[in-house]
C-alpha cells in the first residue's frame, strides 16, 4: 500500500516537474519571440536604411553604427533560434539543420545593404553556429 503511494508520489512529482519544464519552455518561446520581434523592428529601421543612428563622418561613430547593426542581427539570430528550438521541443520534434539554415539566411540577408555589416554579421553568425554545434556535440 505504502509502495503504491510512494510510486504515485514519485510520478506526481515527475509530472509536476515535466509541467513546470513545459511551462518554462512555453514562456521562453513567447519571450524569445517577442525579443526577436523587437530586434527585427530595430533591424528594419537600421539595416533597412530608414533610420540612421549617427550621420557623422567620424570614424568612431561609424564603427559604433556598424557594431550596433551587427549586434542587432546576431541577437535576432540567437533569440529566434532559442524560441524556435523550444517550440520544436514542445511539439516533440528536434530543431533540424534546415530550420537553422533558414534562420541563418533570414538573419544574414538583413545586412544586404552594407557590405561591412554583412561581412561582420556573416563571421558572427558562423561563430555562433560553430559554438552551437560544439555545445550539441558535448
Amino acid at each position, binding site marked *: 500500500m505504502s509502495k503504491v503511494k510512494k510510486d504515485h508520489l514519485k510520478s506526481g512529482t515527475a509530472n509536476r516537474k515535466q509541467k513546470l519544464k513545459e511551462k518554462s519552455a*512555453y514562456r521562453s518561446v513567447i519571450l524569445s519571440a517577442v525579443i526577436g520581434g523587437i530586434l*527585427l523592428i530595430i533591424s528594419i529601421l537600421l539595416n533597412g536604411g530608414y533610420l540612421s543612428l549617427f550621420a557623422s563622418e567620424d570614424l568612431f561613430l561609424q564603427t559604433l553604427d556598424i557594431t550596433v547593426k551587427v549586434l542587432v542581427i546576431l541577437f535576432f539570430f540567437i533569440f529566434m533560434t532559442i524560441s524556435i528550438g523550444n517550440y520544436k521541443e514542445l511539439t516533440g520534434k528536434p530543431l533540424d539543420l534546415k530550420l537553422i539554415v533558414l534562420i541563418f539566411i533570414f538573419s544574414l*540577408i*538583413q545586412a544586404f545593404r552594407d557590405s561591412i555589416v554583412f561581412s561582420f554579421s556573416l563571421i558572427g553568425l558562423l561563430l555562433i553556429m560553430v559554438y552551437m554545434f560544439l555545445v550539441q556535440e558535448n
Partner: protein
Amino acid sequence: MKKHTTNIIILILIAQILVSSAFLIGKSYGTPIEYDVGFGTAPVIDGVVDGVTGEWASAEKLEIELFPDLSNQSDGLPIELWVLQAEPNLYILARFDLNDHNSIEYDNEFLGILIADWDADLNFTDAKIVQFSNISTNNYSYLDYHISDTIYYEDANPNGDCAAKLEGNQIVYEFSMPVKNKEGGIEDVELGHGIPFNFKIVFGKTADYPSGIIISNIFSIELQYPPRTPEVTFGELLMSISTIVIFSTIGAFFAYYIYRITRLKKEIERIRS
C-alpha cells in the same frame, strides 16, 4: 637648468608664431580665392545693370583686385565681380572705374576671362574676351579663343555671349558662357557642377594676347547643382525595392511563426491525446 628651460620655451613660441603666420597669407599666386555660385534668374547681356528688374540681385558679389604681378599683390585695380548661374549658363559681370576712361589710351581696352579645366590647375586653355575697337563709340567684339602653349587660337565655333558699356569712367563687362557644353569640343572648357574651376580675369589696353595683358587675378568657382529634386538612380530604386521585399518576407515569416505560437497550446494537447 631653469634658464635653459625658459630659452627652449621662448624658442618654441617663436617657431610656433612663425609657422602660424604662414597660414595667415591668404592671397598668393597659385591659391585662387574660392567661391560657391548658386542660381538665379538669367540677366540680359547688354552691358547695363538694370536696377529696376534686379537682374543681378541673386549674383554672388565679390570684390577682387587685378595686379600687374600676381606674386607681388600690391597696387591693384579694384573691381566688382558678380557671378551667377541660370540654366544653362554661367554669367559673370565685371565693373570698375578708371581715370580718363574716355581717353584714347583705352580705345583698344579689353577684358578677358580665361578658364582652366577642373583637373588642369592653373593651365588656362579657354579664353572669352571682350575687345574694344573704339571705346568712345562703344564698338567692341566678342572673341572666343582656345589657348595652346600661350598662343591664342580663335575658336571655329564660338560659344557664349558678351556685352560692355562705358558710362562716365565706369565700365561694365557682362559675359555668359554655357555650362555642361559638350558641343564646344576641345576648343572650350566644359564647365560642370560640383567641381571647382579656376578662372583668370585679365585686362589690357592693346589687342594683343597674352602680351597685351597688363593686370590680372585668379579666382576659383564651384558651380552648385541646379535646385531640383535629386534624381533616383536605378541602383537606388533597386535597393529600395529589395529592402521592402526582403524585410516584408522576413516579417511575413515572423508573423506566421507568431500565429503558430498562438496555436502551440492546442497542438501540445493534441500531441498528448
